[in-house]
């Protein structure tokens, strides 16, 4: 059964005792009494399967902080099981906090993968990895590529399996910040967004619903093929230029969540990834032109 088959009030009811969502390799059992959390989950995760089994990989909860803070400047807190890994945030950031908390659960525990800090999408069985420094336009490009028919694996976490070297996806909503929210709205007026949250530590944040195809094919791994470092530059023509592999290796290793933790295995997996991929720098100023360039890349 999919989450979207439940009515909103049923989602709220189930969140009281725990609603188990299957997001690729991880089942999250989510608890919350906050209506905004239920509404955002209901809208953004509608196509996701509910997990009916007795087991969840992570038991998370996001709720109001109790005590006087319930009324005066209310706050939300995130729990992984019985622990509270973060300081509370203003209550209107509860849903964003849940998304960040879920990312943190994976990045700080799932050492059975090599975890790179990069977006990843797939077309024709081949995966495109988009590392990128903050502000480089990685999330905007990821959202636009997904809306153009690329299958989303993740906007944030590239998970490489240590046994088969394939990339595994989560297909969770794409986190967009500040100006990129309006850019994507203008580019794709039909795109579905969650609530817009202002004044977070990342600025204004909103989550974009993943495409139905991305969620349907959630459990299909992808073979790494391209690593592209995007850089948005006003008015710049779309241009792919080769990125030296040694530099790409160093960038990925130093931005990985657990490269050094995996020791020799981390080195081997990153080296395998380099062998499997073409590495490019990509400068772009206009989304439609950028998307055309990636269609050509996928056809080669």
């Amino acid at each position, binding site marked *: 059964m999919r989450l979207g088959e439940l009515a909103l009030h049923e989602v709220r009811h189930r969140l009281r005792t725990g609603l188990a969502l299957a997001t690729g*390799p991880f*089942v999250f059992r989510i608890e919350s009494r906050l209506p905004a959390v239920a509404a955002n989950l209901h809208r953004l995760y509608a196509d996701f399967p509910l997990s009916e*089994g*007795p*087991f*969840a*990989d992570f*038991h998370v909860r996001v709720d109001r902080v109790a005590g006087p803070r319930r009324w005066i400047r209310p706050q939300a807190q995130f729990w992984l*099981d*019985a*622990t509270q890994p973060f300081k509370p945030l203003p209550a209107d950031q509860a849903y964003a906090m849940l998304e960040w908390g879920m990312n943190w659960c994976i990045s700080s*525990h*799932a*050492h*059975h993968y090599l975890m790179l800090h990069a977006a990843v999408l797939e077309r024709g069985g081949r995966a495109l990895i988009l590392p990128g420094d903050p502000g480089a336009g990685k999330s905007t490009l990821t959202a636009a590529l997904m809306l153009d028919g690329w299958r989303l694996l993740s906007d944030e976490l590239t998970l490489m399996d240590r046994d088969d070297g394939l990339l595994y996806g989560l297909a969770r909503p794409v986190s967009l910040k500040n100006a990129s929210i309006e850019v994507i709205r203008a580019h794709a007026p039909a795109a579905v967004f969650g609530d817009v949250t202002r004044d977070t530590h990342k600025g204004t944040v909103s989550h974009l619903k993943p495409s139905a195809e991305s969620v349907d094919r959630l459990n299909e791994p992808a073979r790494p093929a391209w690593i592209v470092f995007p850089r948005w530059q006003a008015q710049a023509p779309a241009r792919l230029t080769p990125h030296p592999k040694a530099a790409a290796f160093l960038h990925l290793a130093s931005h990985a969540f657990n490269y*050094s*933790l*995996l*020791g020799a295995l981390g080195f081997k997996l990153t080296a395998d990834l380099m062998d499997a991929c073409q590495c490019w720098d990509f400068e772009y100023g206009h989304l439609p032109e950028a998307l055309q360039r990636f269609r050509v890349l996928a056809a080669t």
Partner: protein
Amino acid sequence: MNRRCNDLLAVLQEPARMSALTLAKWDRLLPQAQAAGLLARLAVLADDLGITGQLPPPVRPHLTAARTLAERQRRAVLWEARKLDEALAASGMPVLLLKGAAYVLGELPPARGRLFADIDILVPKDRLGDAEARLMLAGWHATQHTDYDQRYYRQWMHELPPMTHLRRGSHLDVHHNLLPETARLKTRPEQVIEAAQPLPGYRCLRLPTLEDLVLHSATHLFHEGEWQHGLRDLVDLDALLRWGAARSDWWPALLERARQLNLGHPLALALRYTQRLLATPVPAAVLAEASRASSRLAWALRDALFLRGFATAHADCRLPGTRLAAFVLYVRAHALRMPLRLLLPHLVYKATRGREQAKA
């Protein structure tokens, strides 16, 4: 311990039971073991028995991840030990490894699948200044900056203010005693240093005897009040005791050593609770001999307290009164550490200072 934590204790006592647990049981056991810092230990125990392949497939990746983290920490401890040896070798002083680092370098059973927060070493008190200067030259520096904290450690405690390495970020506790200077209970660290054995391949690092490792671990557990690691520390003790028990003279030697070091009380506590919670095979006569000094009523009160202390490992394990017990244990740890005339001003200072810092 609450009955909801029975599975955790059961698999620690007899790891083979892991293969019989349902997925629904694992759903509770994994977070409990994770919170107690014991998941990697379970992973390694399952590997040793060759039963990992029989466990439910959704459980296995969690064990792989935990095992990977523990393996990484083991490598880091070996590297830190090498660096410590380089930093202190020229001083000619003996440098004893304690707790986790000792288990890893001594290849002792508690090292398997163990997680670490810091490295603990013990040096002779009269060499403390030399050790500190050499460590600072090698990149370790004190993390407690206020004059008050410096004085708290230097005048009253059994260790220097915790140190952190500038580049590697690793934490180091440099002890000169097993107990604070101000504690009522007095022990004899010089005897521990004297009995320690050099570690092959290192110039100044030494390994305390197995008896002394047990006694230090017990003293640390029951005197420091770090109850969030309580069950993990008890698992260390269980593994050390089982390892020692293979020696025919083990139990009398351990009791005798506890008498020499004046650490009979922490040992009695360690033997009682490893046996109660982890079914450590402590002979009845040894347990009776160790517990002799206290009445039955005293033991009943301690049980009420300490069993709740261990129950802080995870919210599921809590018993009614756990919060009160945790508070009593916190006060107890401080009261054991220093007499009231020092403790009260210290707690008042900390409470008011804490408020000022929160405002700032």
